C-alpha cells in the first residue's frame, strides 16, 4: 500500500559525510592515539604503525581503574534500581491522591517546583550538609542521586500514571490486595515504558556526572571514573597515549551499551522529554 518513495541520494551522502567527519572523527582520533606509542605521533592522524595495548594496562594501573570502575558501577546500578522503585512509588501515591488530599497535592507542587533549582545553586551548602551527615562517600552520593531524581521523575511518571484507568486498582482491591500489592502487581508492570526512560536518564546522569563527584568525593578510594580523569590530568600531562587509553576505557562501557540498545535509548530519551 505504501508508496515507494525515491531516495534522495544527495542528502544521504551529505549527511553520511558530515557524520563520518564531525561525529566519528574525534572518536577515531581517540582510538588511534590510545593505540600509538609516543614515537609514532609525528603523523597524528595516521593509523598506528604497531598497536600498543600496553597504554591500556598502564592507564589501568595508574588510575586504579578497577576501583574507580566498581565505584561508578555501584553508584550507577544502585541508583538505577532504587530510583525506579522509590520514585515511581512516590509518584503513584502523589498522583492517585492529589485530587482528594491537600497533603498529596502539596507534595506534587513541592517536587515539581524543585525542578527549577539547578544543582549548581545548592552545591555549596549541600557539601557542608553532606559532610555533617557523613554522606561524602559513594554510599552517600548514591542516596543523594536517588533523592535528587524525585522532582524530574515525579514529573515524568505523572502523565503516565494519570492515563492508567483506576478501575484496575479497584478490581485488585475487591480481590483483597492491599495498596503495596496493588502497586507492585498491577501498576509497576504497567509503568515499564516510562521506567525504561527513567532508567536511561538515571544511568546517563550518574555514569557521566562530574560536578557532584567533584564536590562530594575527595578521597581517592571513593572517586568515580569521570572524576579520576580530571584528577589524573596533571599526571597524564603530555603522555597523550596514556591519557587517551584511559579516556577510551571510560567511554567503552557506554559505547557498548549504546551499540546494542541505541534504538531503545533514543526512543526513551526523546519520549521522556516530549511527554513531559
Amino acid at each position: 500500500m505504501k508508496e515507494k518513495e525515491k531516495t534522495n541520494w544527495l542528502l544521504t551522502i551529505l549527511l553520511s559525510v558530515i557524520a563520518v567527519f564531525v561525529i566519528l572523527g574525534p572518536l577515531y582520533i581517540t582510538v588511534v592515539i590510545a593505540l600509538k606509542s609516543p614515537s609514532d605521533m609525528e603523523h597524528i592522524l595516521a593509523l598506528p604503525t604497531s598497536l600498543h595495548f600496553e597504554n591500556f594496562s598502564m592507564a589501568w594501573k595508574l588510575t586504579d581503574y578497577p576501583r574507580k570502575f566498581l565505584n561508578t558501577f555501584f553508584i550507577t546500578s544502585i541508583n538505577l534500581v532504587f530510583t525506579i522503585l522509590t520514585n515511581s512509588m512516590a509518584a503513584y501515591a502523589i498522583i492517585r491522591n492529589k485530587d482528594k488530599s491537600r497533603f498529596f497535592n502539596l507534595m506534587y507542587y513541592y517536587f515539581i517546583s524543585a525542578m527549577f533549582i539547578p544543582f549548581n545553586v545548592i552545591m555549596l551548602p549541600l557539601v557542608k550538609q553532606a559532610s555533617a551527615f557523613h554522606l561524602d562517600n559513594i554510599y552517600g552520593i548514591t542516596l543523594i542521586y536517588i533523592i535528587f531524581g524525585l522532582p524530574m521523575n515525579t514529573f515524568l511518571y505523572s502523565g503516565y500514571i494519570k492515563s492508567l484507568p483506576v478501575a484496575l486498582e479497584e478490581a485488585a482491591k475487591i480481590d483483597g490486595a492491599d495498596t503495596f500489592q496493588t502497586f507492585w502487581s498491577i501498576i509497576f508492570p504497567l509503568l515499564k515504558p516510562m521506567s525504561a526512560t527513567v532508567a536511561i536518564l538515571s544511568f546517563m546522569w550518574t555514569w557521566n556526572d562530574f560536578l557532584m563527584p567533584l564536590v562530594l568525593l575527595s578521597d581517592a578510594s571513593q572517586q568515580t571514573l569521570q572524576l579520576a580523569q580530571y584528577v589524573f590530568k596533571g599526571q597524564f600531562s603530555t603522555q597523550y597515549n596514556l591519557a587517551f587509553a584511559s579516556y577510551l576505557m571510560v567511554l567503552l562501557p557506554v559505547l557498548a551499551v549504546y551499540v546494542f540498545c541505541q534504538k531503545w535509548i533514543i526512543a526513551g530519551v526523546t519520549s521522556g522529554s516530549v511527554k513531559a
Partner: protein
Amino acid sequence: MNKHRNNHISPAFYLMVVPVAALFFLLHTVPFLKGIFYSFTNWKGYGSWEFIGFKNFLQFFKDPSIKQAYGFTFQFALSATVLVNVLSLSLACGLNGKIRGKNLLKALYFLPYMLGTLIIGFVFNFIFGNIIPGFGKTAGIPGLSVNILGTSKAWLGVLFVTVWQSMAFNTMIYLSGLQTVDKDIYDAASVDGAVGLQRFIKITFPLIAPFFTINMVLSVKSFLMAFDQIMAMTGGGPGTATTTISMLIYKRGFDGGQFAYQSANAVILFLVVASISVFQLKILEKREAKVN
C-alpha cells in the same frame, strides 16, 4: 458510605511518599534554604560570621569578576542556544528526508549525547592544541597555527564543543516533532503552491513549535549552568575570560573563602534561571492553548 470510602486514603500511600519526601527536604530543601540564609552573612566557609544584610548583593555591582562571569555566561548561553537550535533543526529536517540508512545516521548523530562532557572536552583539547595548529602550520594559515584555547577567542573553542555535543539531543527532539507532522498536509500545501522554505516557515514550523519550546527551555537552562566542558578545556582561562557563573561559585566558594558571597551569587543564578524557565513555559502554555 461509598463516598466515605473513596475519601479514605490508605496509610500505605503516606509510606510511599513521606520517607522520600523527608529525605528530599533534608538533602535538597534545607541546603537551598541554608544557601539563602548564608547569602546574608559574611561566612568564609569556616570560623565565625555575622549578618551583613544585603551587602553581598550590593557588592556584585562593583565586582569585576561577577560582571565578567555573568557577561561571559550570557554571551555563551545565547550563542550556544541559537547555534544549537538552528543546526539541530536543519539536521533534523535532513534526517527526516527521504534518505537511506536513516536508523544508522540517527544513531550516529545521537552518539555525542552518550559521552561524558568532561572527556569530550579533553579530546577536543588535544584536537585544538595539537591537530589544528599542526594543520594550520602546514597549510600556512596563521589563524589556525595556534591553540585557540590559549587566545582571546578561547570561548569559540568551548562553544564549538558544546554545540557538537548538545546538537545530539536537540536534533532527536526536533526529529520526533517532525515525525508527528502528517505527510498529507504537505500534499495539500503543494497544491496551494507552498514549497521549500516557505512551506517550512508557514506550515512545518508552527506544527513543531512545542518541540521548539522544549528545546529552548532545556538548552538555555543547561548552557547557563555550563561547567564540565570549561573545566576540561580552559579551566576558566585564559585569565578569567571563560569563567562561567557556576565555575565562579565552585572556585571561589570552596577555595576562595567566599562561601557566603558565592552563596549570594548562587541565589541570583537561581532567580535568573527560574525566571527564564517560567517565562519560557508561560509562552509554551499560551501557544498550546492556541493550538487546542
